[in-house]
């Protein structure tokens, strides 16, 4: 009974997200769309607080602490930031969302029951949330630093494309090792964590400051997919569908932003790499 009610409320919250996103894409309805999406989020969070769960010890004080600290920091930052600094603020916020997916993936690994089969859906989703969340976190921080001026725009890595490919291969190899192992090796998880963080850094660093908004949009889409991954861990529909909505619309928005700049997405990502190596 309560489960059905909370699932239906989650559905309402999803509908509010969809209506909100739709509204945000038209000038006249944009403000209302934003408020609708925000109310969907508030509803979703309230349902998450009270949805029936088996052997939940709730720990409401810990949650309340997180929510209060988070909203105080978030609202203050949003109020104080200068209009010209908006893109970097969005990037920072985005990175924090990614960090949350990353923490969830990590803690769920830590809490994995001792006899869990490694080749299973739950291990796979943990890996997914951890990897995607970490990439989005470190990538967004680099984008923030570059727009902010605390990282030099011309900052270069030697042969970024080689590091990138090696890094990616490393991530896949470690995923394979974790999945094929007979029991969980926490060292592998930490290595995966480190490689994913590095990947975000190496991916964003070569891209020039002018292309940063496109990259932020791409990272935003990645965070959405990370939220989906975390949702798969808990089989939570709002997280899964909300995440994939952001992921899919983020990709489309990224392509549109590239078009507005007369570039292609491929050009932005690869162009950043080749321009940094040609000027080196």
């Amino acid at each position, binding site marked *: 009974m309560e489960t059905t009610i909370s699932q239906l409320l989650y559905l309402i919250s999803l509908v509010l997200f969809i209506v909100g996103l739709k509204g945000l894409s038209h000038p006249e309805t944009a403000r209302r769309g934003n408020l609708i999406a925000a109310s969907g989020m508030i509803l979703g969070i309230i349902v998450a607080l009270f949805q029936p769960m088996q052997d939940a010890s709730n720990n409401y004080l810990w949650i309340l602490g*997180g929510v209060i600290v988070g909203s105080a920091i978030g609202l203050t930052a949003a109020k104080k930031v200068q209009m010209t600094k908006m893109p970097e603020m969005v990037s920072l916020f*985005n990175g924090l969302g990614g960090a949350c997916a990353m923490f969830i993936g990590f803690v769920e690994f830590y809490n994995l029951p001792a006899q869990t089969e490694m080749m299973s859906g739950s291990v796979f989703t943990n890996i997914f949330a951890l990897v995607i969340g970490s990439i989005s976190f470190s990538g967004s921080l680099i984008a923030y630093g570059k727009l902010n001026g605390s990282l030099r725009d011309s900052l270069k890595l030697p042969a970024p494309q080689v590091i990138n490919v090696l890094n990616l291969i490393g991530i896949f190899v470690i995923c394979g090792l974790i999945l094929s192992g007979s029991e969980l090796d926490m060292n592998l998880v930490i290595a995966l964590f480190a490689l994913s963080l590095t990947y975000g850094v190496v991916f964003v660093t070569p891209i020039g400051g002018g292309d940063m*908004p496109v990259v932020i949009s791409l990272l935003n889409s990645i965070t959405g997919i990370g939220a989906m991954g975390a949702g798969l861990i808990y089989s939570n529909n709002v997280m899964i569908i909300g995440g994939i909505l952001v992921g899919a619309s983020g990709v489309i928005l990224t392509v549109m932003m590239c078009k507005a700049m007369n570039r292609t997405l491929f050009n932005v990502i690869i162009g950043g790499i080749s321009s940094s190596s040609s000027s080196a």
Partner: protein
Amino acid sequence: MLEIIIQFFADNLPMIIMLVLASFLGMEIIGKVPTVLHTPLMSGANAISGVVAIGAIILVRSASPDDYFSLGLGSVGIALAIINVAGGFAVTNRMLEMFKKKKDNKSS
């Protein structure tokens, strides 16, 4: 190996159908967006990706009261995701408010 994959699809078929349909919905939902709205839309979508807060809430709710590792990292996760949510929607609202003012000035 193939059996495991097919078994996975068999177990999660409704979920997979939902994922595919939702990703099409996400691609279709934002039609033609005028260039001025690109940043607010990005920021609004970014705030929605803060749904990951719900996961952190569920994580903390199901952690045992003396598991300080999960509780600590979980509530830090909640705080970070809520910064994303609250800050994201507030920043988007501010940006859109600015557009409205600009329009009013032009028309007056």
